[in-house]
């Protein structure tokens, strides 16, 4: 019998890692994860920006919890901010003022926390747009799109609950709108708001309740969903842009260890640096201007943080006077319709991958991204959605647009109302045309090469411009894309043509009727021969 002993390790690090490995078998995981390949493209870092903002939010938020009192007990402010001294306010507001004026580093932390929150949601939004426009949500990543969407909604909820905590005038006004929206829900609305606020708005409970959501439930959920999201990224491997040597079967890039991890670590500090710089130099949410919440005053220019702006905009764009009394209840359509529009908009965003998968009938896995132009209808839908969102967003600042561009508020609202309907339609049509035109140009380039600007006079006296063929790498990029032809109407195995099949074919025609097919090798050969004549 022989005793196998581990080879003698020298040095602290070596023996420490050996110690760890013998007890956790972690080396397998490190090897596996460390060899994961991440492709390099700036747009792949947007999700990372969101992740890092979240880490920064956690760190700065923990600091804030040390000093914040989530209580609506009235106190008399006695801190060092003169214009509020002696004013009665809730303990929440008073402690937020203390964080801002009397606790060392408190204001910086508050501002880091709030700026990072704005960045968090913005980075998620931009990341979602990247995923959408490159078709990264296709099989097998549909589930991860759904998880990401949930994260987006959770992030907005985190932001809104945070915005409401200081119990200043602005946050109270925001809650008042939520209260109004819930009250508009038929039959149960009033009951729900009484339940949430612990009685008549504003009550004495809401800050404490939102605090629990804000620091416990919502962050835990965000964390769980982030873990799921990243697990799927690892399981699916990263997508990549089409290019020479990149296929559906491989990933071209850098391994996590050491290159990518080092880069990512450095990038974290860059993001932190940018946030810290902004937080150190630019005021955000000066609650001392707003003063404590009091249901009577409302300030001009009262807006939610940017990510809730689209909801505020929807309320502002609703034409007035749409209430009906029915069954003894007042039905406030002026609130219910905007809520409905928002829910439908979010729902469409959520289900788009499944709709597209159903329309194309495509069951293949896709690890190569689409260039936006190569999916004209999807890109056009995206542009329409962005336009719709942007109009709602602009509407939330209608008053500020009016004063700063010296136009009337009614003019701004009416223009945006028209844009809300027409804008997405125009954006859809224009984007689709632009995509098709770009595809045509690509085709042209592949078949006939690019113009060199060199003009040659032929022996017969004719002038021609010399075209040169693209190099292989560029050509590859232009011809290798996924082409979807419209589906044909076929009877099912029983020999019937169902209504759903008809609908699907109609949808498929809508998506893929106008299309520019990629250049096939045959066409290319023919074009080459033609040009050599």
């Amino acid at each position, binding site marked *: 019998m022989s005793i196998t002993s581990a080879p003698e390790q020298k040095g602290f690090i070596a023996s420490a890692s050996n110690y760890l490995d013998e007890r956790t078998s972690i080396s397998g995981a490190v090897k596996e994860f460390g060899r994961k390949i991440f492709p*390099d*493209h*700036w*747009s*792949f*870092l*947007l999700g990372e*920006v969101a992740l890092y903002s979240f880490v920064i939010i956690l760190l700065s938020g923990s600091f804030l919890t040390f000093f914040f009192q989530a209580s609506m007990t009235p106190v008399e402010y006695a801190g060092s901010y*003169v*214009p*509020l*001294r002696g*004013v009665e306010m809730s303990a929440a507001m008073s402690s937020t003022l203390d964080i801002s004026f009397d606790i060392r580093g408190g*204001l910086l932390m508050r*501002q880091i926390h709030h*700026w990072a929150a*704005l*960045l968090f949601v*913005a*980075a998620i939004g*931009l990341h979602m747009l990247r995923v959408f426009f490159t078709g990264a949500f296709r099989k097998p990543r549909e589930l991860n799109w759904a998880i990401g969407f949930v994260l987006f909604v959770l992030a907005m909820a985190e932001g809104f609950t945070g915005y409401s905590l200081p119990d200043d*005038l*602005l946050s109270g006004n925001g809650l008042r709108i939520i209260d109004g929206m819930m009250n508009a829900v038929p039959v149960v609305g009033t009951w729900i708001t009484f339940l949430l606020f612990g009685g008549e708005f504003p009550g004495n409970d809401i800050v404490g309740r939102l605090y629990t959501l804000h620091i416990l439930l919502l962050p835990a959920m965000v964390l769980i969903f982030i873990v799921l999201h990243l697990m799927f990224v690892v399981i699916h491997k990263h997508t990549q842009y089409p290019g020479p040597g990149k296929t559906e079967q491989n990933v071209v890039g850098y391994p996590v260890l050491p290159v990518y991890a080092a*880069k990512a670590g450095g*990038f974290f500090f*860059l*993001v932190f640096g*940018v946030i810290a710089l*902004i937080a*150190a*130099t*630019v*005021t*955000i*949410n*000066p609650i*001392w*201007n*707003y*003063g404590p919440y009091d249901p*009577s*005053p*409302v*300030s*001009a*220019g*009262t*807006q*939610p943080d*940017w990510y809730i*702006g689209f909801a505020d905009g929807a309320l502002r764009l609703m034409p007035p006077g749409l209430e009906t009394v029915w069954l003894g209840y007042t039905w406030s359509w002026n609130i219910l319709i905007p809520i409905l529009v928002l829910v439908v908009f979010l729902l469409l965003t959520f289900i788009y991958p499944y709709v597209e998968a159903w329309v194309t009938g495509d069951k293949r896995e896709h690890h190569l991204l689409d260039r936006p132009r190569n999916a004209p209808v999807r890109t056009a839908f995206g542009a329409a959605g962005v336009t719709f969102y942007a109009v709602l967003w602009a509407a*939330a600042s209608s*008053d*500020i647009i*009016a*004063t700063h561009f010296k*136009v*009337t*508020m*009614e003019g701004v609202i009416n223009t945006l109302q028209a844009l809300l309907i027409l804008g997405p339609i125009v954006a859809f049509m224009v984007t689709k045309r632009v995509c098709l035109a770009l595809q045509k140009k690509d085709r042209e380039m592949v078949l006939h090469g690019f113009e060199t600007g060199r003009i040659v006079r032929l022996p017969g006296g004719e002038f021609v411009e010399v075209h040169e063929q693209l190099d292989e790498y560029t050509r590859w990029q232009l011809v290798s894309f996924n082409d979807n032809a419209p589906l044909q109407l076929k009877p099912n195995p029983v020999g019937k043509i169902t209504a759903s099949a008809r609908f699907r074919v109609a949808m498929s025609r809508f998506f893929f009727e106008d299309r520019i097919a990629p250049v096939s090798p045959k066409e290319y050969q023919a074009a080459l021969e033609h040009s050599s004549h």
Partner: protein
Amino acid sequence: MNRQTRKSGRRSPVASVALLLVGLFATGGAYAAFTATTASASVDLSSPEVINQGQKLFAANCATCHGQQAQGTQNGPSLIGVGAASVDFQVGTGRMPMQASGPQAPSKPVQFEDSQIKALAAYVASLAPGPAIPSESQISGGDVAAGGELFRINCAMCHNVAGAGGALTEGKYAPVLKGVAPVHVYEAMLTGPQNMPAFNDLNLSPEDKKNIIAYLQYNEQNPSAGGLELGSLGPVSEGLFLWIFGLGGIVALTVWITAKSN
């Protein structure tokens, strides 16, 4: 050598900078001297000469719209009984003489000297009794905290909590309150210019008005503890800043990081 002669031939760059500074100080100082309108007790508003001078100025500059006897015309309201305070505010902030009709006469560079404004005010005040120009003691020494609360309740819905201004209907607006002289703030409350309601002494006592002025002055003299104020417009300007500079800067960094490797 060549360089030396050249240098002495021309004015040194430092000299032009210095000249520029002197010029700026001179104009700035003159401007400040002209615009520093405090409640001046130096002009006696009841003296006949002043009233006389005011009447002449009025006939030349205001009568086309307000009428020879300030009785009003189709182009402008009657000024009988509006008082010295109203004239001092309207002319002292450059709103009058009005230049173009629009939703609201905006404030413009002031067109009259202080003594002329006082003369105009004296003339209008001589037509019928009305609110007087407040004295120095009426506009200084208020309680900042009480003023802040009153401002949020009575003024913030139009002027924004930080006095950053706000939109009203049909192209009217409540202007930014930064840089408005205390005496004009008092007169605005007292006379309710154009689309602003008047706050008489029953609404806001003279003490309340003084407190509001103290609050506005405090804000003007104490910039935000948090850094740049972005116009004090609230979440809209914060959001724009974040998207353009925050996310914009970070996207530039991502491009930089990934470009290095190629």
